[in-house]
């Protein structure tokens, strides 16, 4: 493939790709996301390949191993194009029938179609399944339409037109202005306005600047970033290059998980292809803008997702956070201005540049714009990756999309924000998904892990579970975090083992206050989240545990 040297050549290439594609050609898209690999989607993919071969359909039917479709609960998921027939829980034994009946015969196989467990209603197409119906899948929706290893697939869907627009029709200042007006807030945890961060890095003194993708996603119960990054790596990369142009950076880093070979491979392939096409490297698209990317991998500790720790890790040092009197956007990697955004934040950038801030700000609430990816898990009927417009109520997410609580149980609480987040009771379920509204309730959105708990859940045990995680992940550099969390955990363990004493609750509150005020980084500062929120909303449970010396069942 020759390099693309101008915006016109990119357009011509896209036109050429589209003209060669027959929209009526059958295509079998099998989800190869982590949720579907567990129940064996890799075997389903090989079975399809064998079957296509057997029927001498090679070249007449396309096969696509895609990223996560979202509905992990019903995996392995298969979509047959062009009719977009959606089959769930597909087994290897079903494949011959699917090829002969649906791919060739154009007939729907009733037993493989999604059936609503409540109403018994069947949904042939993805868009009719209740799980997908209320979603707005701007970021994750393309996952089933592209092969993550194919830049051509991404280009055919209009990929890199935002980059071309930014480079040839906009100045870096205009790009920055667009992101600021869109009020894009960071999806990694803090919800800090991305435009302001970019501006700080842009204005910070120094020739060399860096942009970084935080793809660490270390919190338990969060799996949306890897679903997006594995399934559509170019959408993140395109956002990163646009950001680099706006900030004036010529080097970037991707920091991501080491434990998914698929994620690593797809990123490596995406970078190599982008470079080959002239979308990365020297003189991008003939614009004169240069930008290179290096991949760094986390080697298994939660705190290395914290911005200053992550940057230490990229320098090749142990990832201990530092106090942030000076922001990393001013002094980060090797003390140079370094702008770090999360995977999902970067993936939002291309659509804002393509469609404009006015389009973007129409989605969402006053203070939280756009859509948000949510990892929905726990005691919920439909586990999976969900994308909804900001402002959707938690009730809609739990009941309309999530299908409610399994086994006829009642909802007790919803936990947001991972191990440093908080739990809110079922009575607050009409709260909208909004950075500020949820933070006010003590359950900040965080990165978007939403954990649902039924009536059998012991909230003291929930707090203990998260603190147990955090005590193992504390880097140990500062005392309030290292010792504070350990002492909190000790008290929580005693309470949940029926050995709680009068005064334990007050002591816990005091420890929370000190660790929150005196710790170095967000891990220690917000480690008290699960304790304070459960104490706030479920205090009587703590009291009962202590009073009645309750022991876990």
């Amino acid at each position: 493939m020759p390099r693309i040297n101008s915006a016109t050549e990119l357009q011509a290439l896209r036109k050429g790709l589209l003209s060669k594609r027959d929209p009526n050609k059958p295509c079998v898209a099998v989800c190869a996301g982590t949720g579907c690999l567990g129940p064996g989607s890799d075997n389903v993919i090989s079975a399809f390949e064998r079957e296509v071969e057997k029927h001498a359909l090679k070249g007449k039917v396309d096969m696509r191993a895609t990223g996560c479709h979202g509905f992990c609960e019903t995996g392995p998921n298969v979509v047959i194009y062009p009719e977009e027939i959606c089959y769930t829980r597909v087994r290897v034994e079903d494949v011959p029938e699917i090829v002969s009946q649906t791919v060739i015969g154009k007939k729907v196989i009733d037993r493989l179609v999604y059936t609503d467990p409540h109403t018994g209603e069947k949904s042939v197409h993805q868009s009719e399944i209740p799980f997908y119906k209320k979603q707005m899948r701007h970021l994750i929706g393309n996952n089933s339409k592209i092969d993550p290893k194919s830049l051509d697939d991404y280009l055919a869907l209009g990929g890199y037109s935002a980059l071309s627009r930014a480079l040839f029709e906009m100045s870096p200042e205009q790009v920055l202005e667009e992101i600021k007006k869109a009020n894009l807030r960071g999806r990694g945890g803090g919800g800090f306005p991305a435009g302001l961060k970019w501006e700080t890095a842009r204005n910070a003194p120094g020739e060399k600047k860096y942009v970084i993708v935080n793809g660490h996603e270390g919190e338990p119960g969060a799996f949306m970033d890897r679903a997006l990054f594995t399934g559509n790596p170019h959408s993140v990369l395109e956002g990163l290059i646009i950001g680099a142009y706006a900030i004036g950076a010529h080097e970037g880093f991707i920091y991501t998980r080491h434990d998914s070979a698929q994620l690593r491979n797809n990123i490596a392939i995406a970078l190599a292809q982008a470079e080959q096409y002239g979308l990365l490297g020297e003189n991008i698209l003939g614009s004169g803008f240069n930008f290179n990317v290096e991949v760094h991998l986390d080697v298994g500790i939660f705190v290395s997702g914290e911005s200053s720790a992550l940057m230490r890790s990229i320098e090749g040092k142990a990832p201990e956070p530092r106090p942030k009197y000076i922001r990393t956007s001013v002094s980060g990697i090797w003390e140079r201005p370094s702008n770090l955004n999360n995977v999902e934040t970067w993936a939002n950038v291309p659509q804002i540049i393509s469609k404009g801030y006015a389009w973007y700000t129409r989605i969402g609430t006053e203070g939280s714009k756009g859509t948000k990816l949510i990892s929905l898990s726990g005691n919920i009927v439909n586990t999976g990756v969900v994308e909804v417009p900001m402002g959707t109520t938690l009730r809609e997410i739990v009941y309309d999309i999530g299908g409610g609580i399994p086994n006829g149980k009642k909802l007790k609480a919803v936990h947001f924000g991972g191990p440093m987040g908080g739990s809110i009771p079922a009575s607050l379920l009409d709260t909208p998904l909004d950075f500020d509204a949820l933070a006010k309730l003590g359950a900040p959105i965080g990165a978007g892990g939403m954990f649902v708990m039924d009536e059998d859940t012991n909230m003291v045990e929930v707090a203990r579970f998260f603190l147990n995680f955090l005590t193992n992940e504390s880097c140990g550099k500062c005392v309030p975090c290292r010792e504070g969390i350990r002492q909190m955990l000790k008290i929580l363990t005693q309470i949940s083992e029926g050995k709680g004493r009068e005064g334990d609750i007050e002591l816990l509150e005091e420890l929370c206050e000190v660790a929150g005020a005196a710790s170095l980084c967000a891990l220690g500062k917000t480690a008290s989240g699960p304790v304070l929120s459960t104490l706030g909303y479920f205090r009587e449970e703590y009291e009962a545990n202590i009073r009645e010396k309750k022991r876990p069942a």
Partner: protein
Amino acid sequence: MNGVNEVNGVKGKVRTGAMDNDRIDRIIDKYQGKPSSVIQLLMEIQHENHWLAREVLVKVSKRLEVPLSEVLHIVTFYKTFSLIPKGRHEIHVCTGTSCHARGGQRVLDRVQDLIGIKPGETSSDLKFSLEAGNCCSLGPEIVIDGKHHGRIEPDKVEDVLKDYH
């Protein structure tokens, strides 16, 4: 010499268990001996060899001119690195929030019963190493050598494990 000490008088050719000098040199060469690549490089050795012998650390420290104390700081900080030999098969049982809620602990108990080791340990015949942690979206799940076995029930564990020798 950059704070690097000779350990156990090891010089020149080092003993590295399953990994020979050439392979380590090749990995170090790949990163052009850049001190900032120490984490990536150690990880690659860990992936290939399943553990990091002291001699390997000394060699990395020398070639990259990174003090051994710093190398040790890194390898003891990150959980992925192992300073003791690991088994041929790495079993990872998910005990994250979702699996926790769906009975991940019972799966872990069953695995422990069957292979007789706890998380963080390696069986004496070096067949299995066991880890517990967060890994998935659809639990309970166990991952063996990178292969996911999702929606697993405690009584199915034995069936899965018997395929690994």
